[in-house]
């Protein structure tokens, strides 16, 4: 507990937080389809409160029926939410942690799909993501919006919240008004900054007058929209000064980017350096005396402390770090930082699932979002068994952890000298190193719960018979598949061969992307860095189709451009004869040809399930998890492992 400032309390108006860690607002999709907060919400937030975070700010609650941009949004405008609010705030208050409600109207950054009403915005400027031309609100409608904020704030107060945060940053109608890019008005709400900020000041006044002095009020501002003609830091500082001058606000939260244009800069993946958004709270804090929250890839308590010590912010938003480990704060505070399940910033199960309209989870924490169902809880077994896990990849390790947590005696045997399986390979390329934290997190958790791990030990049915465990979990992974079209052509290899260093492609390389994730793009970058001339070819409409979900697509494009990597789409490999690769442009059926020095394939692998079938055949109690069950991504392996391990 060497971080002094991080663990010191702070007053946010009437509310005192016990430390400077904020579990700040983020979408969860935990709301019911009719917009009510759920049990899932309550238990999810309560787990972070129990884990010691200083403050929780909930996801946004919509203030107005014209604002329903995605299905599972909390309908603050519906008076029925109060029961759900109560459940949520009671659960969090049991741990003496304050909880604030973020209230918002998304303005033009929305769709009419759910609301069946035109979206509202300051001016009829279509949002780049939703591509709907909004209705420019009238002055009466502005008054309506302002009143709706006050109504919802009053409801939040009744529901037991300790404070209100006005979302005025990356996706909100207030941002729409503040930003010269989206506000073309010529009335009292457009033009000068004072005019563009008018609605913000009116909302602040209206909300404060209904919540009174006993609740905290915060405003979240965007420091740089990162869009052409948008708000930049100098103007954001001026807005912060306006906010402070209302004398009604207790703190300022910050953010960067616009959710529907530059989302990848808001929820930055591991490809963007930590602290990248720090200049925003720093500049605002220099200009105002209000406490300022800083956000942006804070992964480590000491990194957070440093931001506080250097005066860039007064509080630090750690969202994904606390999703991955609800006890992030408690572990760090008690000096057990090394036990923290560090966030990978992979965005696969948190951010990624939001875009797919699924509830928020975590690639390495199966309990995240499943607290209310008891997933990941310790349930000590009355009859501990001996369990043998074959393979120390993410699936096998998670099975071992889950079983050992419940008191079973678990041994993991891994053929290679290290754990992690394909994750180690995935993490060995530039910009992907943080992915490897999954391996280290599992390893340290396994050791903590008493799993025995034997490296360099291959397991066959005889060895299983000799060890005579009560149960075997096979997690032997998958093996690269040689694509049919490659025949016996030389210089065709798998991405794994390149990452393992068993082949060293040189010269011109075609990378075939049939998986649509990091496999092809990572290796393409690696080879380009090594001086190869790289082209990535995919049958899909875009290379790395799923990179968009984890917000890695833009980064890939930026770097691919810088490294002169060529991307070719809609091409299906049809054969490789005499060094000539035939590619069929499937929409037109025309053939194209390449004569690369090497072809590197990112193609679906084959499960390695021999051992599983042998053991089943021999009547041994056997389960299989991860790729040897069905090759998928790391999160699926972890979920398999957790399910099988916890069910023993």
């Amino acid at each position, binding site marked *: 507990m060497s971080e002094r400032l991080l663990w010191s309390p702070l007053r946010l108006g009437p509310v005192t937080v016990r430390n400077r860690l904020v579990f700040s607002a983020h979408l969860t999709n935990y709301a019911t389809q009719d917009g009510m907060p759920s049990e899932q919400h309550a238990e999810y937030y309560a787990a972070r409160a129990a884990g010691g975070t200083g403050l929780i700010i909930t996801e946004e609650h919509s203030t107005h029926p014209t604002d329903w941009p995605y299905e599972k949004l909390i309908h603050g405008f519906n008076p029925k939410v109060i029961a759900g609010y109560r459940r949520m705030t009671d659960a969090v208050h049991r741990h003496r942690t304050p909880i604030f409600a973020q209230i918002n109207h998304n303005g033009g950054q929305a769709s009419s799909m759910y609301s069946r009403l035109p979206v509202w915005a300051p001016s009829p400027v279509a949002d780049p993501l939703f591509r709907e031309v909004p209705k420019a609100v009238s002055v009466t409608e502005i008054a309506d919006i302002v009143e709706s904020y006050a109504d919802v704030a009053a409801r939040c107060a009744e529901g037991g919240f300790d404070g209100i945060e006005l979302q005025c940053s990356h996706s909100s109608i207030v941002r729409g008004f503040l930003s010269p890019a989206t506000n073309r008005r010529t009335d009292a709400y457009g033009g000068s900054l004072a005019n563009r900020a008018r609605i913000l000041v009116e909302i602040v006044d209206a909300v404060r007058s209904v919540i009174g002095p006993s609740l905290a009020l915060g405003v979240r501002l965007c420091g740089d929209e990162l869009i052409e003609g948008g708000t930049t830091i100098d103007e954001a500082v001026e807005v912060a000064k306006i906010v402070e001058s209302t004398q009604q606000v207790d703190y300022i939260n910050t953010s960067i980017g616009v959710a529907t244009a530059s989302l990848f800069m808001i929820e930055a993946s591991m490809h963007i350096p930590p602290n990248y958004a720090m200049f925003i709270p720093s500049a605002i804090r220099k200009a105002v005396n209000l406490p300022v929250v800083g956000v942006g890839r804070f992964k480590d308590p*000491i990194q957070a402390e440093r931001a506080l010590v250097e005066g860039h912010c007064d509080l630090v938003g750690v969202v994904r770090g606390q999703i991955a480990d609800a006890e992030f704060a408690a572990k760090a505070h008690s000096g057990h930082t090394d036990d923290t399940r560090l966030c990978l910033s992979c965005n696969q199960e948190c951010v990624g699932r939001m875009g797919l309209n699924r509830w928020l989870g975590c690639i390495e924490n199966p309990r995240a979002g499943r607290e209310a169902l008891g997933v990941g809880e310790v349930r000590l077994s009355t009859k501990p068994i001996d369990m043998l896990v074959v393979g120390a990849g993410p699936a096998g390790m998670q099975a071992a952890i889950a079983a050992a947590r419940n008191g079973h005696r678990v041994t993991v045997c891994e053929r290679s000298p290290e754990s992690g399986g394909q994750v180690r390979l995935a993490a060995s390329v530039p910009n992907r190193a943080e992915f490897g934290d999954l391996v280290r997190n599992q390893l340290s958790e396994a050791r903590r719960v008493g799993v025995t791990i034997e490296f360099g030990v291959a397991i066959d049915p005889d060895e299983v018979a000799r060890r005579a465990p009560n149960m075997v979990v096979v997690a032997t992974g998958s093996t690269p598949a040689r694509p049919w079209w490659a025949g016996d052509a030389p210089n065709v290899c798998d991405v794994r061969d390149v990452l393992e260093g068993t082949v060293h492609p040189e010269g011109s390389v075609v990378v075939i992307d049939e998986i649509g994730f990091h496999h092809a793009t990572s290796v393409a970058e690696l080879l380009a860095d090594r001086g190869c001339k790289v082209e990535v070819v995919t049958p899909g409409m875009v290379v790395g189709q799923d990179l968009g979900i984890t917000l890695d697509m833009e980064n890939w494009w930026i770097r691919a451009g810088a490294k002169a990597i060529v991307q070719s789409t809609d091409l299906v490999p049809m054969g490789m004869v005499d060094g000539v690769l035939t590619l069929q442009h499937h929409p037109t059926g025309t053939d194209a040809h390449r004569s690369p020095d090497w072809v590197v394939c990112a193609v679906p692998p084959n499960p390695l399930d021999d051992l599983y079938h042998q053991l089943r055949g021999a009547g041994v109690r056997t389960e299989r998890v991860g790729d040897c069950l069905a090759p998928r991504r790391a999160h699926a392996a972890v979920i398999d492992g957790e399910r099988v391990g916890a069910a023993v």
Partner: protein
Amino acid sequence: MATYLALLPSREGSLVAGGDEVVAEARELDPAARVVIIGRGAENAATELAGLCESVELIERDSFEPSRWSDDLVDVIVGADVVVIPASPDGRDLAPRLAALTGRPLIAGALSVQGGQIVVARQGGLLEEHVQFDGPIIVTLQPHVRGALAESELAPTTTTLAVSDTSGTRSNDARLIEVFPPDPATMDLAEASRLVGGGAGLMSGDAAARFAQLGAVAVALGASMGATRVVTDAGWVSHDRQIGTTGVVVAPQVYVAFAISGAVQHTAGLGHPEHIISVNTDPHCPMMAMADLAVVADATATLDALVDRLGAAAPTESAMTA
């Protein structure tokens, strides 16, 4: 409005730490603030203020003599309401004497000088005291707190101040015998531009000899030696040499890592070295992924080979200055 003067000692053509910050602070409060550099190589030191001010007054002096210099400075600071001096060595020698000579109050070790209010840390940095003043004062400003961003690369113009030079008259100032250059072996790791680090992989066998060897290689490369937490916890290297978030946060230009896997607690404290070399048997660990040159080899044997090649020779001149 109060008038400000930034007073910066220089040594061998460089400003003492925090000189740039003092100028930035004074100019922010008083765009017409005077900037005075006193010491050896004042003219050269002025180039460090590029983009921070337009003109600098110089007083060229030989070695540092706090008592004589403050005698000479009494007239120079006349007319400035607030004299700001860096609270680093030389600055904090000079300020009290100048205060005593001129009868001005001294506010030492300020965190900021904002308008009429000066903020000073108290109780070991747990508290800040806000002080107001209404007469001429002298302030020393804590270095490394404010930071200073240059607005351009334009070097300031310089004029030499005609000041009565009492050099040669008898003073009881201390006599300088020698200035020792930074010793990579003992210097603060945070200030080292070249670092050699050792990890747990060097702890098998004769660990003491390994780390002595690592130290020798560091010296030969003109670098400072650091280690990971496992190593310092085991006692092979002292804790002030621990690189990482729980140890020293460093900012080297080049980092050579031996048998370091690169746990985030280590790499998060590493800053952003321009050049990284990593030696490890595991090609897939994060330190190797971060490296410009990742050498898959046995780190201890590589150390042996490096010692052979570099000898125990002291660093060459270029190794010191490059």
